């Protein structure tokens, strides 16, 4: 009888041969990743719908003409300044989030709390800015199903008849409020989740558990919100 084990009977130890976690990531974190993938599909569908409507339009309201106010400071002549501020706020809050995750790896509870509070404040500042931006556009006459009067619209375009200007402005307004609204809703839920996690950190839930993995999971969600804004910013304000 042979004592050598044939190749097929050897115990396999590769990551996919069972008995271990092939991705080496905790269940909740994998699920967060796949939720974010599905959310990426949703946002992509909205942005691609925007892109195809815009491609098929002969004229489109100029971003530098629509967005040129800084609410509370100047009404005209400051294109992209306010949205630039919003972009930097969101990038900064992403940085504080990743610093909270880093502090979590060192089990430094008070540092995690500090960075999480900073992230929540960043998120609230962004939401406040977005409310001002929406308020300003609404004041000008843009909303779902309504646009400013024709003589105001003329200033936002180079070329196009009045009817075409009316139609594409309406498409712009509907898409702008829908997409930034959907993103803003994500920021809002992100802030709520961040507050819940911050309270849990303060109560010592994760200290008892021995790992701050929950902070990493909400961190993934928060970075995704920042990631979506990067695309919204490019396609609504720059292109």
């Amino acid at each position, binding site marked *: 009888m042979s004592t050598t084990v044939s190749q097929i009977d050897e115990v396999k130890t590769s990551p996919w041969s069972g008995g271990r976690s092939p991705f*080496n990531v905790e269940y909740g974190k994998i699920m967060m990743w796949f939720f974010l993938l599905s959310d990426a599909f949703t946002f992509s569908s909205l942005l691609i719908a925007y*892109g*195809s*409507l815009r491609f098929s339009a002969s004229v489109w309201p100029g971003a530098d003409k629509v967005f040129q106010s800084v609410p509370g400071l100047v009404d005209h002549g400051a294109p992209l300044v306010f949205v630039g501020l919003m972009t930097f706020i969101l990038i900064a809050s992403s940085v504080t989030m990743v610093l909270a995750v880093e502090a979590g790896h060192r089990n430094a509870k008070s540092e995690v709390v500090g960075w999480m509070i900073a992230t929540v404040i960043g998120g609230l500042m962004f939401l406040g800015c977005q409310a001002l931006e929406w308020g300003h556009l609404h004041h000008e006459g843009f909303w779902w199903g309504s646009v400013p009067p024709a003589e105001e619209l003329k200033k936002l375009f180079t070329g196009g008849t009045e009817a075409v200007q009316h139609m594409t402005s309406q498409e712009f307004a509907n898409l702008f409020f829908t997409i930034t609204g959907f993103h803003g809703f994500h920021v809002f839920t992100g802030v709520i989740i961040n507050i819940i996690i911050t309270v849990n950190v303060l109560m010592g839930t994760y200290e008892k558990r021995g790992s701050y993995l929950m902070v990493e999971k909400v961190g993934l969600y928060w970075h995704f919100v*920042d990631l979506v804004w990067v695309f919204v910013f490019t396609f609504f304000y*720059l292109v």
Partner: protein
Amino acid sequence: MSAESHEVHHDGEHESMSKKRIWQVAGILTFITCIEFIIALAIVPSHPELLKYANPVYIVLTLFKAFYIVAYFMHLKFEKMGLILSLVIPIIFIIGLILVLTNESHHWVDLRF
């Protein structure tokens, strides 16, 4: 055994995203955003003929930013290759939809105007 491997995994993470690295990535993101603003506010208004090159540049810069956020802030670069592939390959569907609808929208122009 499993707790042990968990520890090892965490140590690796700690090394890969140090505070220095975080600030480096934050600096890159801020820098790319500043370049976008310079193109939009300074270069395009004074050279309108460059407008048609601006949009592809914005999109490439945006994809760079997306890469840095996903790879470093969301830590995907340091995960197992299997996880990276299972998250990145489905993006093919998004690319497909972009190709289909941009092509389609060129025909809508004739229908709408």
